[in-house]
């Protein structure tokens, strides 16, 4: 825990250094593609001033100067599976983005979707010493949260205070400077497999880059595709990715729950490939061109030439109807959505005041998905696209890039996390004293 605290603090410092240099890269390590955005931070003075609220909900302080995406290799279920392959893919994306930006980027903020995220809700409370809540009190109350035993092979990815309560008042966003005697907090802790983080660290280091931040793909997709009201009133963002489907529940502008289903678009492709006896590339192509989830009478007559590349093109001229393709795709998508429903139910999503569900990610582009999702997830379903940020190429504005765009927003305005506050001072001497006593015992 302490190591991670130091690591995250170091990453925050790296991010600050990157902000001063004004250029930072965003890396979305996904199962089907790796996207890289290069952001330039200009500061508020350099942008053209406009009347009214700032452009893009205040996110206009950066602009995208380089964007590249490449086919992902060596990533499965959103986790790095083959290091060398992934490293090459990251290099490809980085090189193309740097070439477009014409600037060298040294700092990178990465997000990934897999690694079995798990959410914990923690709470803690302390007595306010001076009667007025200070920054140190917040650090203390965050440190007082009782951390569950999540296993030694897992690391904390996000630890965000989502609520503060001062005496009998709850739901405070920022209690600093307020008068009270007892301060309590709710902390949302998200852990992932430590090996996944270590692998990603290693891959990025091998590309001569410095990691300035890590984020969960589900979380950043929620930032970019949920509108402000949805984040405030409560909504779930379902990021239908290639290898895993991320779920994040937002409430009062904080993520309060996050989970992932280890199924995604790649499994749909695999089903098609197996069902039609075609290579994966062909299956992927058929899925993106003709895929759907609701069959109509028209689809029985629309024949698709699948062109199995068996080398015997004269006899292997198989065609299928689109209805058949939908028949293959639909069960898998239903399964994914059912699983999402189960996770949301487990999280108690139905108790939220608003039941909005936003589908985003590359998988959300399947025609008719919103109708199917409405049957499984509830009536308030919509398809979400990422926020529009300045300078983003048209090709990178689709829902498949909600993770990358969200990560850019996260880079610009990271939420305060546990490691942004100082460790309470009293824990230091206790530790060092203990260490000194141990040293004496060992040596004398």
């Amino acid at each position, binding site marked *: 825990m302490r190591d991670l605290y130091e690591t995250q603090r170091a990453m925050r410092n790296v991010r600050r250094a990157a902000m001063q240099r004004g250029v930072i890269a965003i890396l979305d390590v996904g199962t089907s593609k790796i996207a890289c955005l290069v952001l330039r931070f200009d500061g508020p003075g350099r942008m053209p001033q406009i009347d009214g609220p700032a452009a893009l909900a205040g996110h206009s302080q950066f602009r995208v100067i380089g964007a590249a995406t*490449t086919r992902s290799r060596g990533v499965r279920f959103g986790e790095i599976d083959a290091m060398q392959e992934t490293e090459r893919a990251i290099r490809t994306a*980085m090189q193309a983005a740097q070439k477009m930006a014409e600037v060298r980027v040294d700092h990178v903020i990465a997000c990934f979707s897999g690694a079995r995220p798990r959410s914990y809700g923690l709470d803690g409370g302390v007595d306010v010493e001076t009667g007025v809540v200070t920054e140190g009190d917040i650090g203390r109350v965050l440190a007082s949260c009782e951390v569950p035993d999540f296993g030694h092979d897992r690391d904390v990815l996000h630890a965000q205070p989502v609520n503060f309560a001062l005496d009998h008042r709850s739901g405070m966003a920022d209690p600093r400077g307020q008068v009270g005697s007892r301060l309590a907090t709710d902390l949302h802790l998200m852990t992932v497999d430590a090996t996944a983080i270590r692998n990603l660290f290693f891959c990025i280091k091998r590309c001569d880059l410095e990691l300035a931040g890590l984020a969960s793909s589900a979380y950043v997709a929620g930032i970019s595709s949920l509108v402000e009201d949805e984040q405030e009133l409560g909504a779930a963002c379902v990021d239908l990715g290639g290898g895993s489907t991320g779920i994040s529940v937002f409430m009062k502008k904080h993520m309060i729950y996050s989970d992932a289903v280890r199924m995604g678009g790649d499994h749909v492709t695999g089903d098609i490939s197996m069902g039609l006896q075609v290579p994966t590339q062909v299956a992927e192509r058929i899925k993106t061109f003709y895929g759907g989830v609701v069959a109509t009478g028209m689809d029985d007559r629309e024949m698709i030439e699948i062109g199995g590349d068996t080398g015997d093109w004269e006899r292997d001229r198989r065609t299928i109807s689109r209805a058949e393709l939908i028949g293959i795709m639909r069960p898998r998508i239903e399964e994914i959505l059912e699983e999402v429903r189960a996770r949301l139910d487990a999280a108690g999503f139905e108790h939220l005041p608003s039941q909005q569900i936003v589908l985003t990610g590359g998988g959300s582009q399947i025609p008719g998905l919103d109708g199917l999702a409405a049957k499984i997830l509830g009536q308030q379903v919509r398809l979400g696209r990422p926020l529009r940020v300045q300078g983003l190429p048209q090709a990178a504005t689709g829902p498949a890039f909600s993770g990358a765009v969200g990560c850019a927003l996260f880079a610009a305005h990271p939420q305060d996390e546990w490691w942004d506050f100082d460790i309470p001072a009293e824990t230091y001497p206790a530790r060092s004293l203990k260490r000194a006593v141990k040293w004496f015992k060992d040596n004398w």
Partner: protein
Amino acid sequence: MRTMTPPRAPRAPRTRPLRDPAPSKWGYRWQRWMLTPGVRTGVYVGGPVLGVVLIAALWLAHDGNRAMVTGQIERLTQAVQDRPEFRVTHLAVTGADEDLAGVVTDLIPVKFPVSSFTLDLAAMRAKVAELPAVEDVYVRVGDGGALEVGITPRQPVALWRTSDGLQLIDGAGVFSGAVATRAERRDLPLIAGEGAEDHLEEALALFRTAAPIAERVRGLVRIGERRWDMVLDRDQRILLPTYQPAVALNRVIGLEQSAELLARDVMLVDMRNPQRPTVRVQQGAVAASRNAMATGAND
């Protein structure tokens, strides 16, 4: 008729994986290195500049090339300077009389025609301004290729007799030339004595006061750097006081006009004490007058 060849196969959809576009590790590093701002500027600006400088330096390393360059520059400069627009053909001296103009012409040793670039106008002006007879001067290259020298001469207001001879002196007490004899400048009053040049105003005022006896006045002599003596012909002198000498002189002129004082056998009229004007008569005049009275010549 049927063709014997089978119909061309439609292109099968590409199913082989695309060529992996990943850059090699060193290629990636090389690109990043080239995108570093310093290196980038160095390559795109520093490299070409260095190349050009190197080539130029190598070329200039040969003495012949350097000489060629300097020669070319000199020839070009000469060609521009020798253009008729810059040619100066004659000297035009204005504002000076003939003597002074002659002196000035001798002072400016320029062989015409000459390019205006080679003329050192400031030095010429300094040289001409050093002349005592010149109060102010400008030297410029004017229209039509003339080297114009405009002189404002000093206006002498008096002659000053010194041990070196007769000097012309202007209103500011500055020598503006010399004359050989008094006869050359009969129009100017004559002053003498040490410190006379510092009280020129007073002297000129005295000369104006003495206008009724102007044809008899020889000049003014400064005595002891303190007061004036007016010297008349027949060795007569009027000794004037330090203060208000014009008043005293007026009294003497009044006496002259009423009693013809100066026409008499008077050697010296002493007005140094205004309360007590004194007259000294000529040697023997008293005796002559007594003799005349004794003989009753006046009766």
